[in-house]
């Protein structure tokens, strides 16, 4: 018997599987990568305020490499290339966390650098004139001001990373898209229109996660630039 299509979402354990097996993995990868990426990114951003040409050059190459080469290609490089070169076995999830962390660190580094460099020069000079040392200068003057300018960009980066985690299905991670495909396969005869409803459902799941984040970032940006 053929059922009306939308029931496929609520049939059996389908919705639980989509949310708790699939979406959970997606969010887990995104969350871990955002954390690692932010920490590395802050260090990279701080290192980009030096005057050493070598460090600046290395940072530049690192950032441009992640900007020019598509993320999926990076996933392939680590999943096929690095594992073969080092003769190690990495699961798709580990590879995705590594790649997304490195990518996040590169972009985060640029956000931090932009925020630090956008601070007016007189803030640094005033801090020095007060006799603050470098640590105090960063701790009490620069970082509190820079964080405000960083947050909208960081939230934006987080939404981009969450969206890009959809690619992990292409290196064999069982994420929300893969679970969706499995449900479509198993309900092929019962629900011929399953792929329409399941992909539609995944589409909205991503939207529900990313929309509030991008709204918050937009509002903060509007509030803090004035």
């Amino acid at each position, binding site marked *: 018997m053929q059922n009306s299509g939308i029931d496929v979402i609520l049939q059996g354990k389908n919705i639980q599987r989509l949310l708790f097996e699939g979406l959970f993995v997606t969010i887990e990868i995104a969350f871990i990568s955002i954390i690692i990426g932010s920490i590395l990114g802050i260090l990279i951003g701080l290192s980009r305020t030096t005057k050493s040409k070598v460090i600046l050059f290395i940072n530049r190459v690192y950032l441009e490499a992640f900007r*020019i080469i*598509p993320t999926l*290609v990076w996933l392939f490089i680590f999943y*096929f290339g690095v594992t073969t070169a080092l003769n190690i076995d990495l699961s798709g999830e580990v590879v995705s966390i590594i790649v997304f962390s490195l990518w996040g660190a590169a972009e985060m580094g640029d956000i931090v650098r932009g925020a630090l460099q956008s601070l007016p020069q007189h803030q640094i000079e005033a801090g020095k004139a007060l006799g603050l040392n470098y640590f105090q200068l960063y701790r009490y003057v620069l970082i509190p001001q820079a964080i405000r300018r960083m947050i909208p960009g960081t939230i934006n980066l987080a939404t981009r990373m969450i969206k890009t985690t959809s*690619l992990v299905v292409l290196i064999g991670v069982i994420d929300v898209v893969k679970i969706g495909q499995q449900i479509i396969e198993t309900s092929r005869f019962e629900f011929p*229109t399953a792929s*329409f409803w399941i*992909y539609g459902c995944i589409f909205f799941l991503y939207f529900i996660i990313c929309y509030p984040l991008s709204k918050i970032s937009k509002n903060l940006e509007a509030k803090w630039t004035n």
Partner: protein
Amino acid sequence: MSFDWNFVVTSLPLYEKAAWLTLKLALAGIALSLVIGLLCSIILYFKIKVIDIIVQAYIELSRNTPLLVQIFFLYFGLPKLGLKMSASACAVIGLAFLGGSYMAEAFRSGIEAVSKTQIESGVSIGLSKIQVVRFVIIPQAFSISMPSLSANCIFLLKETSILGAISIMDLTNLTKDLIGMYYTTFEALTMLVVIYLIMILPLSFVLSLIERKVRYAEFGN
């Protein structure tokens, strides 16, 4: 393990074919998304009733969902409702759907940056609404939004790398196939990266030239 140059030579024609396909799809997607973006931003600027709510909803939907899911929906979902399209049509429509909203945002911020005095002077010398848009707003908005437009072009070209998911033989999909068939992991990946560099570096160079070209008459700053 030594680098297999023989593989590079024999697989070069395949890569060339895939590169042209990638470029063709990306160009079609970029052209369409520029049109969609311009239309959407003008609709938002004039606040045309009802349509502007639809446009706003479209922009939010497209910006907050991944291209992969959009394309799966187009390619696997829509045929169930009787709307069948070829893989390349889905790819171009998907790219345009995603890119349209990014372009719209870029144009919109450009339009907003055109100073009010420009528009008022346009009106005061007797230009109609459409003439103000055509001769005053669009040329200036275009030059202001050029940096983000070119960033979006490169973004869309990079996004084509996922089209392999709907069995389009683009560069990334070809590489995956070659690795699977011949185990030439390093060679295939190196070719892939080099070809992306060959495509994207000149594109970004040309775009930055255009940027400089259109900003020459910038007013004020």
